[in-house]
């Protein structure tokens, strides 16, 4: 069961394609991090997912088959847009009433309890709340709808470190309580590993990498060795990124998924070292090379050496 499926999804603004040939299937029950540089198409993809904008090409469905933006989809998706835009002239209490009035399902008592616990005054105008408080209010309003999928667009972008921590703690607590799926975009790659278990990397409007984070990390490796020997290694393993430092070179390579390959032997030559790759290194490695891609699919395309190294 997938909470988000796209097929050939494309979105064009005038002559510029924000998304192109985007094929994606995000499984349910995951906390999905959508990362990519500015202009990669993250917000466009999320806006398509919640039905704010229609795609130019292709299709997008949510929650196992609902057309994005359809009444059935909207009832079960909650969206917190970038900068959490709410009605600034209303009080927090009025904002709660507005949210309750716009939804068939809204747990107002729980939302009030949550806001009280966060110390957000109910009689204060939204405009007079801090950025962190506004983000928490927007999240509370979304969670009170008991959605099956919570979509967050750059929720951490304008929050200080403490507010980021509080916000993500709220998200994690809610996920644990309500068994919802979460799809959030972020620039803050260092925060992803702590909260997300599924990763989608977008670059230049295309899906560059998607998959379970544990599997993605296990299927990549950092190899360090003599620069003279780099070409030979590159013939054996798909290289995502190569960084030279004098006579040595460090390469981020794909080695296949261990779970896919029975039995193995060590195949690295002497003089080469291998290290596990961190999530930040993995994401940055792909973002620096938009031509590289890693999408879910058969491992048959990997060279034999890459499969064996993965073991």
């Amino acid at each position, binding site marked *: 069961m997938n909470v988000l499926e796209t097929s050939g999804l494309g979105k064009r603004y005038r002559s510029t394609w924000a998304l192109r040939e985007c094929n994606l299937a995000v499984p349910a029950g995951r906390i999905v991090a959508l990362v990519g540089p500015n202009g990669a198409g993250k917000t466009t993809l999320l806006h398509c997912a919640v039905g704010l904008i229609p795609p130019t090409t292709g299709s997008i469905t949510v929650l196992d088959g609902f057309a994005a933006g359809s*009444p059935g989809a909207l009832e079960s998706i909650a969206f917190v*847009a970038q900068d959490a835009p709410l009605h600034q002239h209303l009080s927090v209490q009025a904002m709660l*009433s507005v949210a309750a009035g*716009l939804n068939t399902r809204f747990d107002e008592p729980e939302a009030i309890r949550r806001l009280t616990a966060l110390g957000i005054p109910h009689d204060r105008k939204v405009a007079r709340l801090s950025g962190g408080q506004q983000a928490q209010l927007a999240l509370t309003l979304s969670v009170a709808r008991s959605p099956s999928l919570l979509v967050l667009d750059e929720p951490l972008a304008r929050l200080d470190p403490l507010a980021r921590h509080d916000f993500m703690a709220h998200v994690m607590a809610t996920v644990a309580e309500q068994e919802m799926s979460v799809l959030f975009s972020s620039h803050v790659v260092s925060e992803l590993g702590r909260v997300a278990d599924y990763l989608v990397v977008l670059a230049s409007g295309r899906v560059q990498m998607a998959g379970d984070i544990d599997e993605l990390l296990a299927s990549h490796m950092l190899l360090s060795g003599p620069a003279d020997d780099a070409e030979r290694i590159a013939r054996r393993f798909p290289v995502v990124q190569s960084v030279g430092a004098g006579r040595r070179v460090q390469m981020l390579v794909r080695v296949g998924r261990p779970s896919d390959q029975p039995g193995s032997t060590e195949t690295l030559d002497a003089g080469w070292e291998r290290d596990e790759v961190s999530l930040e290194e993995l994401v940055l490695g792909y973002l620096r090379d938009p031509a590289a891609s890693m999408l879910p699919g058969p491992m048959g395309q990997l060279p034999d050496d890459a499969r064996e190294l993965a073991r």
Partner: protein
Amino acid sequence: MTTLAPAHLPRTREAGEHRVPWQSIARVNWLQNRGTLLSLALLGVAFAAAIVIGESTIQSPYASYVAHGCSAHPAQVACVTTAFANNQTFFSNLVIALRVMPVAIGVFVGAPLFARELESGAFRFTWTQSVGRTRHIALSLAVLALPVAAMTAVLGLLLNWYAHPFEVVGIESQWESGLFEAGPLVAAAWSVFALSLGALLGMAIRRTVAAMAATAVLVGGLAVASYVEFVHHLLAIAPIATTRLAPDGAATGLLNIPAYRNIGPPGAWYVAGWFTGPHGQTLSENASLHLEGRFYGCWTTKRTNGEVGCVMHWLSSHGYTYWLSYQPTGRFWDFQAVEVVVLVVLAIAFALSTLRLARSGRP
């Protein structure tokens, strides 16, 4: 890192299975627009008070006018209408104010309705709630159209009640542009029209102040155009032509005037007058003026006694015929209905365009 078991994702409902009730949308709109709506309601109350005060000042002279039977014999000394004439300026100002009311509704209620959300980005909140943007926009327009239409309809009724003595005296007519569009139904339709046009401009322009300015210019301009042109063209549709009435006053060309007291069909609206010659040809304006000069003496001397037979006799004996086209009083509500239908159809078209813009995903 947290990995959850796959969540249970029920297909909660198919499209339209459960809907946010309109009462909830009404409450949301009240919360979002209560400042504007309360101001508008206060304005309406002040307006109503002004009408009641104005009407009370002519109650006494009107009672006297009726008591002396002036409707039938207006030439009596007791039937001098100075008190009405003095009050007429105040009345006319109220008519103008009621014509301005739809402009205010378009500017302060319609234009900001969606422009404010688009400008602030709050539409990304509103349009992603269960209600959906189509239902939200349609119901928002409907629940706001209802009170503004009701308010202007009530004010129109009050103003027509105030207008009655002036009409009996003969110094105002329900057919004249200002009062014609201040009728309860037409005034209400103008309010809905202005609200809808303002909302469309807000959706298209996406900037609150700019949308308000555009609405003021457009609705104001259309109101003026309607006052100056549209109503006159509307009332000129399929008039009844007669040769049984004598030329009186401005007798040729487009008249656009109410029937004179005791002359012509009571309560009618004169559309146009023209002369035809001995061979049935329509006389030009100059020829008509020349003709009038020839029977002018007869016309003025006999006219004072309410006699028009002299003019009619002179015309027929010289082979001329005077034609007058008019709308009988019984058609008044037909024309009111026509203007209401035109305005409501346009308002619906604007509302549909607003929905179409919102659904195009332009934001």
